[in-house]
């Protein structure tokens, strides 16, 4: 664990790295010239250490930790270059243990802190995540495996830095004296390392109150400078929610307006002085909820809709109120029980904004008729009815039309709706809209010309204020991207002399999330419906056992989750989990105590049944499930989330603990990185133009128009306007989803009701004179508005790229792909391809700039573990994990924000092996990265030659993807120790 070895101390010091460096200049001959580089490295390190520390400590019982630290620390320290991160961590852990007494809460806390720390330093959100995860993985491997053998090769890239750090680390470990040096900054960090208690004091942590859909409040502690994403993932994790792309967090701004928390930005900068109170809500209402994969997701959607209905936001008739109310009752209370359910049993429920006796009686009457309906079915029925409501999924904003008449703008999945009072007076479907922009408090949409017209028209609306205009604009951009595009538009690169918001929706689109969720194959997660606290029964109904299984899977997934994304780090954690499983020590998981208690009984039961029923070795259904699951979850989470705990290998045998079972899992990861020069505007516009021309002549017009504007923009660049404006061009080409023929005839109407403006006028970007700093936060102009939200760029991205087209037109796929491969913009080419052709690895892309490096350190640790549990017999297990790690991509890659473009998993099985291939494509800045992860599980008796199998697997992998490099090989071996020794 050489290079990345960041001691926690270091990590914590991060913010003041520069200073530190200077202080230690003598000690470090190689002080980096570029602060950036260093900071990145440090970030990584810090994150690593943080992740490992927390993760591990969390799962390790105190005694275990101590053991570790003793054993490992010694050797590592002696080793040169290789700063034993683990050692440090362990040290930290030890300390923590002492201080905290190994309390979980504490460790968790510190973990959170550590993680957030990383974020703090980094300004680029996505980067963190990736780095974080990877680092964590590695570390955890090293450190966590007290009982595990770990061999890891790390790259030498960072050797220089390592050297620097080593001394520091040592110092820190051995003496807190360091603190004195940089009292101001580092003090708290270091202290935190030493004592968790102190840490919590010094590092600014904030407890967020997140109101969940069921009305409960979930307190979540985050570092003060954490990004929205962090909190959101925490919340989803708490819910065990996988299809999370439909959801978001809101907060009330100073004006008491509901705002969406931008995951990519710091929370603090968004909420400003507002309290740290958030509401978890549905952001994108799926037009067809039946396509959601999990009952849990549907349940949450139901809760949201019930709120919407009760608050009057979603108007519905009396009949609908009663019907929906009855389904809600059925879902929560089950069948009507005449004895238990007297008439007043429903008074706790609110079915309508104003509820009367008559309504309640009707609800009860209907409730009785739902006898036998499972909660999941009731939810499904609820949604089937609710989705037809006219205002379902419509996000309303007050506005005025050009004549000053009060209207409402409704943003929904299909487009923009205009209401006057309750009446719809116009509608602009996404395909009709060429551009969305705002300027000051005006919001504009440019309309595609109709058949008979030659020119685009622009319709303007007046919003109450600038923020409101921007908000509508953002919501439009997000909805358009989510519902209409295959992949989010890559963010534009910061440019000089541009202004406007560079905001783009960066999450997954509906298409992506559906694709991902199709692959979810975890058993229905366990969850409770609010009032009844009954166990949710899935449709295929399972009894006790299934529940138990669910619980376990749940846990596994919990970890797998991270695994996917991060891909590396948490192997160790995984092992810990494994152990836990075998011991049924679930307390350590991030579950609430109640949950744990509830599950425990069933788990032990499950375990018993396994023990009795399966004397046979691994290859049980368990294996398959377990092995399959993590991978599956991978793609789900593959988006760049940061802080999840990863789950590595679901140690199959763990639960079953069959005697004499032996299994080896091989993971071969292959990474390919393609760096394509990012040439933004010109080529892209050209490309899209070409495509558009083919499809619709009209497109050409718009493109031209854009081109024309560019010069204008430059010329006006010096005029400094504090107003913000931004444009967004929804793409239309390649999308064939229109529901109704959108015939352009509406002009008449529009003119009557809305102001049509000359397109030239507002499409002209005004530029600021200040050069745009790389980060939004720093932008001076931003100060006036919402700094954190403002980008400095004017966005003239042409969205109409084929790759983003909907899948609806598969036939055209071929051609689309061809076009894309042209000089076009980098990563874009790849998604379309992968999106449609599973398992294809894009090799066609332009030059690969890859730096491969070294690998050098191995960490080796193997220990036997004995764990005992109260209720269960002792299980002896040995786990070996060997990690071969090649150099990762060069550092900057890791740091960049990554956008998951595609992810697939293919599983194949043979007699004793199961191969799972997981391919993810990520777009990070200018890079398109394809990552193939193969997981090969070999199950069988010990006489299988695992080494050979491994070699074979690697060889095969290389052959299959000659242009890719193997970056990481993890061998995870588990053996039953009952007979003493493997």
């Amino acid at each position: 664990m050489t290079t990345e070895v960041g001691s926690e101390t270091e990590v914590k010091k991060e913010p003041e790295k520069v200073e530190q460096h200077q202080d230690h200049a003598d000690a470090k001959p190689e002080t980096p010239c570029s602060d950036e580089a260093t900071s990145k490295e440090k970030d990584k390190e810090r994150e690593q250490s943080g992740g490992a520390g927390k993760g591990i400590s969390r799962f390790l019982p105190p005694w275990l930790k101590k053991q570790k630290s003793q054993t490992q620390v010694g050797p590592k320290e002696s080793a040169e270059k290789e700063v034993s991160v683990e050692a440090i961590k362990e040290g930290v852990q030890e300390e923590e243990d002492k201080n905290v007494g190994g309390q979980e809460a504490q460790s968790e806390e510190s973990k959170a802190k550590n993680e957030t720390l990383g974020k703090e330093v980094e300004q680029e959100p996505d980067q963190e995540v990736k780095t974080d995860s990877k680092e964590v993985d590695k570390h955890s491997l090293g450190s966590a495996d007290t009982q595990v053998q770990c061999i890891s090769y790390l790259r030498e890239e960072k050797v220089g830095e390592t050297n620097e750090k080593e001394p520091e680390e040592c110092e820190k470990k051995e003496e807190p004296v360091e603190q004195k040096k940089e009292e101001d900054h580092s003090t708290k960090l270091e202290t935190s390392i030493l004592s968790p208690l102190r840490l919590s004091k010094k590092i600014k942590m904030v407890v967020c109150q997140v109101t969940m859909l069921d009305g409960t409040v979930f307190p979540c502690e985050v570092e003060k400078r954490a990004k929205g994403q962090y909190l959101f993932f925490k919340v989803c994790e708490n819910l065990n929610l996988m299809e999370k792309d439909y959801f978001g967090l809101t907060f009330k701004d100073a004006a008491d307006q509901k705002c969406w928390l931008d995951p990519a930005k710091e929370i603090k900068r968004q909420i400003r002085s507002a309290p740290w109170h958030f509401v978890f809500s549905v952001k994108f209402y799926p037009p067809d909820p039946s396509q959601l994969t999990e009952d849990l997701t549907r349940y949450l959607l139901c809760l949201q809709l019930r709120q919407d209905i009760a608050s009057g936001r979603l108007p519905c008739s009396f009949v609908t109120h009663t019907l929906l109310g009855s389904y809600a009752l059925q879902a929560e209370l089950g069948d009507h029980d005449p004895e238990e359910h007297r008439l007043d049993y429903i008074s706790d429920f609110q079915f309508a904004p104003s509820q009367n006796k008559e309504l309640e009686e009707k609800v009860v009457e209907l409730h009785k008729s739902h006898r036998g309906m499972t909660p999941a079915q009731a939810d499904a029925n609820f949604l089937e009815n609710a989705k037809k409501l006219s205002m379902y999924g419509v996000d309303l904003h007050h506005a005025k039309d050009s004549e000053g008449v009060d209207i409402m703008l409704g943003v929904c999945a299909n487009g923009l709706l205009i209401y006057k009072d309750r009446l719809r007076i116009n509608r602009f479907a996404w395909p009709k809209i060429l551009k969305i922009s705002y300027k000051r408090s005006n919001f504009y949409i440019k309309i595609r010309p109709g058949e008979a017209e030659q020119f685009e028209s622009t319709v303007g609306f007046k919003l109450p204020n600038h923020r409101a205009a921007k908000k509508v604009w953002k919501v439009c951009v997000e909805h358009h991207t989510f519902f209409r595009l295959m992949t989010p538009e890559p963010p534009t690169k910061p440019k000089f002399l541009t202004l406007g918001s560079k905001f783009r929706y960066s999450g997954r689109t509906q298409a992506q999330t559906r694709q991902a969720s199709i692959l979810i194959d975890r058993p229905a997660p366990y969850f409770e419906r609010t009032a009844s606290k009954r166990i949710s029964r899935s449709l295929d109904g399972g009894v006790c056992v299934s529940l138990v299984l669910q619980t376990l899977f749940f846990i596994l997934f919990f970890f797998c989750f991270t695994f996917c994304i991060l891909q590396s780090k948490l192997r160790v954690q995984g092992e810990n989990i494994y152990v836990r499983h075998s011991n049924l020590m679930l307390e350590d998981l991030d579950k609430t105590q109640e949950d744990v208690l509830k599950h425990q009984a069933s788990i032990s039961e499950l375990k018993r049944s396994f023990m009795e029923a399966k004397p046979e070795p691994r290859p049980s259904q368990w294996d398959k499930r377990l092995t399959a699951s993590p991978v599956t979850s991978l793609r789900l989470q593959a988006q760049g989330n940061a802080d999840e705990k990863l789950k590595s290998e679901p140690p199959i045998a763990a639960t079953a603990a069959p005697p004499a079972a032996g299994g080896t899992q091989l993971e071969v990861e292959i990474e390919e990185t393609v760096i394509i020069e990012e040439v933004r505007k010109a080529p892209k516009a050209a490309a899209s133009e070409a495509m558009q021309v083919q499809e619709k002549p009209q497109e050409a017009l718009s493109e031209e128009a854009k081109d024309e504007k560019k010069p204008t923009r430059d010329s006006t660049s010096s005029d400094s306007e504090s107003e913000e404006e931004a444009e967004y061009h929804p793409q239309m080409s390649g999308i064939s989803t229109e529901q109704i023929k959108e015939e352009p005839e509406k002009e008449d109407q529009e003119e009557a009701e809305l102001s049509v403006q000359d397109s030239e006028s507002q499409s002209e970007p005004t530029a600021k004179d200040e050069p745009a700093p790389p980060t939004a936060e720093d932008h001076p102009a931003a100060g006036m508005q919402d700094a954190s939200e403002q980008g400095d760029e004017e966005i003239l991205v042409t969205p109409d790229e084929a790759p983003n087209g909907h899948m609806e037109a598969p036939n055209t796929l071929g051609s689309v792909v061809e076009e894309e491969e042209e000089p076009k913009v980098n990563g874009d080419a790849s998604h379309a391809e992968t999106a449609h052709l599973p398992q294809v690895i894009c090799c066609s892309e332009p030059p690969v700039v890859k730096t491969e490096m070294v690998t050098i350190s191995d960490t080796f640790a193997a220990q036997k573990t004995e764990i005992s549990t109260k209720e269960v017999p002792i299980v002896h297990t040995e786990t070996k994990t060997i990690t071969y790690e090649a150099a990762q991509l060069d550092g900057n890659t890791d740091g960049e924000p990554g956008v998951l473009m595609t992810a697939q998993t293919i599983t194949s099985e043979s007699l004793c092996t199961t191969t799972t291939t997981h391919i993810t494509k990520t777009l990070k800045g200018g890079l398109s990265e394809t990552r193939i992860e193969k997981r090969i599980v070999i199950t069988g008796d010990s006489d299988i030659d695992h080494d050979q199998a491994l070699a074979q697997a690697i060889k095969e992998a290389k052959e299959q993807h000659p242009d890719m490099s193997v970056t990481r090989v993890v061998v995870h071996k588990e053996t039953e120790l009952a007979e003493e020794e493997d």
Partner: protein
Amino acid sequence: MAGFGNFTHAVVRGIPQSFAKEAQRTNVTDVDLQKARQEHEQYVNVLKHKLGLEVLDLAADESLPDCVFVEDAAVVCGDAALITRPGAESRRKETEAMKRALMEMNLNIIEMTDESATLDGGDVLFTGREFFVGLSKRTNQRGAEILADAFKDYTVSTVPVLEGLHLKSFCSMAGPGLIAIGSSESAQRALKIMQQMSDHRYDKLTLPDDIAANCIYMNLPSKGHVLLHCTPEEYPESAKVSDQSSHIHTLSTFRLQCTAQWTLFIWLCCQVYSAAVHQRAFCFGQTKNDSKCHLPLVVKPRSVWSNEN
């Protein structure tokens, strides 16, 4: 919300003596009262006996010359009935009898009390998924708003009616997801607007005569999909197509030269939710449909008719 199921009831009202002289009309030709009553009788017979609907026949009121046009007096959808406030002053009282009749059917009555609101049922097109309200001489924005309030489940979009008396003077539902539309310019323009405003997709059935586009679609428990439309004698071009199917019950139209609107008022009772709720659908000749269901009767004609979709 979910589809209306079947039509079971119809409300009609007799023709008063005063109809011949005093009724609102768009042209001045005298009405042959005798003939009108004959047609009406025929019409009621079809509803009762051929179609098996339960018909509520309200007595004519001499003080209300237009009372035969029951369509304008109420809008029924689901379990709610909106008693309208007709745009013509002389017709306001027509709603009283209608209200009583509907109350007896246990519908939730919603009254339009706002003095500034006017709404004729003839301007309300319910497609099964949403409402279109024609803003015409008889219906104003406020009336449409109240309708939207009454039927909250549905989107209510407004459509300007530039020519013709009512929105349904030139269009109506001819089947699930099928809009019959006249070919006049104003009719076509209104259709464009409706298409643009809607989240749903409709097929259109363009008829040479605007008036012929005023028909009644019903889904009957015993007969399946039924379309009532004008007679071939009156609109031979438009009727050609409709005769293709013997299932279409041709009515001697109640075409009284004076107005272009249908005078039918049918409302139906159906069970929407399995045995739970009785939902009554009142439609102006059309029921709600589930999009998948194609009605056999109209499908065929469609190809013959100038279906331009």
